[in-house]
């Protein structure tokens, strides 16, 4: 026995390391060449999809008594870089599950993958029931192919809202098949198909009594990951699935046939609320006591909720659609948009107002209430109906005055509760002037310093965002932060004698006044002096190059800067930079110098009347920015009088 044992051990020790070495994968020269071609087409990408077929079928689940959706996906992915590290991800939640996942190589041999299944973390939500199943795809080199097959089940067709063609990676071909049985009425809404060569066919499968709708799109780029972009529903082609009704034992049962049905479902959830105002009754009385008008009363309540209830987002099954009871939100001092809207409503009701819960999609979503789908809204606010007017109150906003609407909800369609009925309306839009930021200063030269008396005024959203920053700063650091804000942390700037209007009052404009001393703004070369009057130079670095998607501004902007310079005795003005007076679409740039007596007035007004800059407007925008830069590049020249 022993004589056999020793050689065996020897063999084991010697070859064990090789046994553990990674196995090489045979990648065909054709696939290597294909990867090379794809890399040339998509140099920024590491992975591409050769083909992807998604099949969606529908069935009735008797135990749940719901129409379920079965999604079956087969895709073939190719690595187009040598070191591709790619994680395949599948989302699901309490209304769905991933029933199977498998990865195989090109030859069909199943590959080992280490799957991880975790709650999805996002800074957007404090808690979400969304879960993420993910695993790394084992690619060897460029040209290596992996087939990923998976199946997902939606327990209720209501939650199966849309399907996109685009992915995180480019695709050569994507095919969507919807297998719709005769007993189910589904409308497939084709969104943003224009400009894409999407082939559609419909095939009737008599045997299975179903219609098969097939959509195919080829050569698809990856979904852009640019910042400040509109939501995907604006640009990318996709299909909205609207399950309208079904027939069961000869009887028609309605799902989401019209917007009425969507509201009916929402209303059925809000009907379940058991609000009890006992805990906040005395507070409401306290808030409205002594207030002269109804608007003052409503304002006091709205501001209290904004100030005192923290926004903490939950997305948890049905709780993602049903508001929390007002007394809970009140006692916890936190809630999500629905909870905060409901508390505002209940407090207003207690004060004798007609206040309603209101559903809407923020500007991230391209849809309005022209069709019923859970994908049309993502937010809830409260509408106050007073003297025939509607006031939209979004308590999740911070430092938002009563009559101001945040950009994200302006112009959006809303669905306002009205018992069994509902009202569809639109939130008014406001001009950029409501968000004006002004910088007014009077300047004189002292040696090589510029001494300015500055007044800055903030309105609307520019004020709200500044107040938000102020109130989120530790009180012992506030003076330093304000100083930093006013001097931009630049050593050449010094702000003195700072005064400001109250940071606690949301209604009036916010105004900050101070003396600004600037070093290094004047270059004195004896006969000539060069003066840089505007250290801020708004929009100087705002050329949009190589951008593919529209640019979203946080809100409409009006920036107004006026600097009045006292021309020093013994000096005259040199050539002044050419004025800029350009406007296109909803954008205006007016920058100039004007001499008035012994004063030189520098004026810079930039207005952005529409908070989105479309790609087709980029060229004109960039030209304006170029002119602006040229203006900024040219210092003001003061020449000694001879």
């Amino acid at each position, binding site marked *: 026995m022993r004589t056999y044992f020793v050689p065996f051990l020897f063999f084991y020790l010697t070859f064990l390391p090789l046994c553990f070495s990674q196995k090489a994968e045979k990648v065909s020269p054709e696939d290597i060449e294909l990867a090379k071609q794809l890399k040339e087409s998509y140099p920024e990408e590491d992975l591409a999809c050769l083909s992807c077929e998604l099949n969606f079928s529908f069935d009735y689940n008797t135990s749940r008594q719901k129409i379920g959706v079965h999604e079956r996906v087969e895709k073939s992915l190719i690595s187009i870089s040598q070191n591709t590290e790619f994680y395949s991800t599948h989302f699901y939640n309490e209304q769905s599950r991933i029933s199977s996942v498998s990865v195989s190589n090109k030859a069909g041999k199943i590959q080992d993958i280490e799957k991880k299944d975790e709650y999805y973390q996002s800074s957007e939500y404090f808690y979400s029931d969304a879960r993420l199943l993910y695993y790394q795809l084992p690619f060897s080199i460029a040209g290596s192919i992996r087939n990923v097959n998976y199946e997902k089940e939606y327990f209720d067709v209501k939650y199966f809202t849309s399907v996109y063609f685009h992915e995180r990676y480019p695709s050569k071909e994507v095919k969507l098949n919807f297998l719709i049985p005769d007993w189910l009425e589904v409308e497939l809404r084709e969104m943003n198909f224009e400009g894409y060569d999407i082939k559609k066919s419909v095939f009737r499968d008599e045997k299975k009594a179903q219609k098969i709708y097939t959509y195919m799109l080829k050569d698809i780029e990856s979904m852009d990951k640019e910042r400040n972009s509109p939501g995907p529903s604006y640009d990318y082609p996709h299909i909205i699935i609207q399950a309208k009704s079904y027939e069961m034992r000869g009887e028609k049962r309605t799902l989401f046939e019209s917007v009425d049905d969507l509201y009916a479902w929402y209303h059925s959830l809000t009907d379940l609320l058991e609000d009890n105002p006992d805990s906040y009754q005395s507070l409401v009385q306290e808030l409205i006591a002594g207030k002269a008008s109804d608007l003052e009363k409503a304002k006091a309540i709205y501001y209290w909720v904004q100030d005192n209830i923290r926004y903490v987002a939950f997305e948890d099954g049905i709780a993602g659609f049903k508001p929390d009871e007002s007394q809970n939100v009140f006692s916890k001092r936190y809630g999500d948009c629905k909870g905060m809207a409901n508390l505002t409503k209940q407090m207003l009701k207690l004060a004798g107002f007609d206040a309603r819960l209101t559903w809407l999609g923020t500007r991230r979503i391209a849809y309005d209430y022209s069709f019923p789908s859970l994908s049309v809204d993502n937010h809830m606010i409260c509408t106050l109906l007073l003297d025939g007017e509607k006031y939209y109150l979004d308590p999740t906003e911070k430092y938002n005055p009563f009559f101001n609407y945040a950009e994200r909800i302006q112009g959006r369609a809303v669905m306002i509760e009205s018992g069994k009925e509902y009202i569809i309306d639109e939130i008014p839009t406001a001009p950029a002037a409501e968000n004006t930021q002004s910088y007014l200063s009077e300047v004189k030269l002292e040696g090589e310093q510029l001494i300015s008396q500055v007044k800055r005024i903030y309105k609307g959203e520019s004020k709200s965002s500044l107040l938000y920053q102020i109130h*989120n700063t530790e009180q012992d650091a506030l003076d330093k932060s304000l100083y930093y804000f006013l001097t931009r942390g630049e050593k050449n700037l010094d702000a003195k004698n700072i005064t400001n209007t109250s940071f606690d009052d949301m209604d009036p404009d916010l105004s900050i006044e101070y003396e600004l001393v600037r070093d290094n703004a004047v270059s004195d070369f004896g006969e000539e002096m060069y003066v840089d009057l505007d250290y801020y130079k708004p929009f100087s670095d705002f050329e949009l190059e190589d951008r593919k998607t529209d640019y979203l501004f946080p809100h409409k902007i009006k920036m107004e800067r006026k600097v009045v310079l006292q021309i020093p005795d013994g000096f005259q003005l040199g050539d002044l930079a050419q004025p800029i007076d350009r406007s296109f679409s909803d954008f205006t740039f007016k920058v100039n110098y004007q001499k008035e007596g012994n004063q030189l007035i520098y004026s810079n007004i930039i207005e952005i009347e529409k908070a989105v800059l479309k790609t087709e407007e980029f060229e004109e925008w960039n030209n304006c920015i170029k002119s602006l830069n040229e203006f900024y590049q040219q210092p003001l020249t003061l020449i000694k009088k001879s």
Partner: protein
Amino acid sequence: MMIFKRSLLALLFILILSGLSAQKKLTPEYIENYFWGSGDPMPKDLTVPAKWENESAVILFQEYNFKFENSGKRVNQVEALRRRIKLQDKAAVDQYSEFSYKEKFDVSSNWNRRVEKVFAGFKIVKPNGEEQIVDVNTAVRIEGTEDYQRKIAIPGLEEGDIIDYYFYSFNPSVFTSMHAFDPVFTPLSAEYPIQEQRITFEVERRFFVAFNSYHDAPELELVSGPRDKLDRYSLIDRDRDKIETTRWFYPYRVLPCIKFQVTFARSNYELLQMRAGLENGETVKKEIDGEDVMDAYEYNFSPYKFEDKKLDAYLEKKGLSLQKDKRKTLDAVFNYMRTTLQVYASELRAVDQAGGLRASDRSDMEYGSNYFRVCREFASYLKTNKIDFQLLIGVPRRYGEIHEVLFFQEFFIILYIPEFEIYAAPVGEHTTLSEFPAFMEGVETYTVPYAKKKSALIKNHFVTSTSHEENKTLQRSEIEIEEDMSALSVKRINTSWGHLKTDEQDRYLMLEDILGEDYAEVGKAKYLDGVKLKKTLISQARLKYKASAEEAQKIQEDRFKAALEDELDMEVPDYLDFNITSTGRKNAAEPFSYEESFLIKTDLIQKAGPNLILEIGRFIGGQVALEKDEIDRTEGVFLDHARSFDNEIVMTIPEGYKVVGLDKLSYNIDNETGGFVSSAKVEGNLLLINTKKFYKHNFEEAKDWPLMVEFLEAAYKFSQEKILLKKAS
């Protein structure tokens, strides 16, 4: 690597848990009652001292407690924290409105799987004294189910409230021999001021506590009686202002700090050994002295006999031998070892990532990856060749001085060869003989002669402090203005020596930059060129290795570009070219050097009618911009090392222009702490500017800070200067 826990936040605690010994008592109710029950010793006063009324938050009370018990088979370790904080503004409310913590922690061994629970409790104390306990069951899971991470939103929290919370953990472990728990080194001050804090230890006598307080931190007191089963120690600290840090500040050298470590002895012998250095009646160890160091290192570092035929052949080929040229040979030997151990290990790691490493070579990778390996091997070489050397054992100066050392993890060891007065240090794959890390600059060390027996005296040695001339960067910028006056074309040569060289090497040199020159020197083939593996496997590994090398090259370019942009404080989209001309890895005298060329459009040049204004000062790079509140300083100034930055700027003056404003470019400040000296002149069509900024020492007393301010401000002012290129009329 030394491990310091830099924040007490990393720990968990309690009050003295008298009689709490059995694990079975640990229910959430028991723990809650313990902290918040009738016996709560927390001061009842909720008022904040007037001087802290404007602070964001004030820690009214906090207590850390550690308890170590030996229950026979197991060692039970309790860690607990209780904290009560007054929240005085919205920012503080926001900070404490959510907590995330681990509900359980994994104490699995290779023998069994086990998790222990962390008990947590939160309550709000309203200004009127009303208390609201938070239901911890509302906490939600925030990560994968395996990680026990929980997150809780604190309901009803408002400005003016007090948040009162605790964490408590009980960790039973099995140790078959001596076990040292993680050492802790922390300042007593925190983000918020602290009215009162306590640190408490309870240890059975089988445990050994090392503890000391520094920079006027209160002492740890023994509070238990001689008959108590446990030794109880307590530190009480009151009225502690919040932490304020500033530029060039080593908090561990200045702030009141404490250090501690608890060690468990399985046997009486081990306990005796640990207590050997203590005076009569002492139970807590307060320092590690020379004796301890001698005991620890005399035998721990005993180099073996060295033999390497390949090294012998290499030296022979180079015509080197100890007899002919000892110093040069030592340089070559050190570099040879660096290549064959450390650099080789780096190559193997890259090969491994490409999937081409034979498992049998993994041990080489791990062996050479140990940063101390080259030094150890070199020590063996010295010993075998009877070249006298010593071990120098000291503490990085950021953390303290040698008489303040409390645990061995604080030490850093380098070799010293008295014959040449040079060091050999375990640092990185670019280190040459005589280079050592900046953190050992001027550090006082113990000297352990390797060959001598215990009777040998331990002498103190001070590691060299390098001069600003030794740690130097020279930048030569050659500037041409483009014909249309719209851009500057710049060619820059950057050369650095000393510690500044080390920084640049670490930032810029990629594996491929060093493999080529190192392997050519020692005649070594690249791993993937010689390894025997299956053909497809090797070809795939090569492809992946090449792709990684290309990625590294891209990273290298990005780093060069980013450093330039950071220095000039602007974007440089037209970064045209770079080239490393000297890696500086042959010996300490050889600099690291690279050339780069780039275009600067518009940013530094302004057109004023026919004239041009050029921000010439910016070419010396971004300078320290002292803020208003930095001008006065009460703390000493800790710099990593002395250093100097020289700049030569050569600009071709465009035809038809003359330079105006040169008078602003002359500075001459040279004082005891450093200086800034500059000059500018025109020679023919060239504008020549020279600047030199230098910090003379690695430490300045606070009283000398105004001298530093003088040259720092001068350099900043220079960096803001402009010249006028005036068109001849």
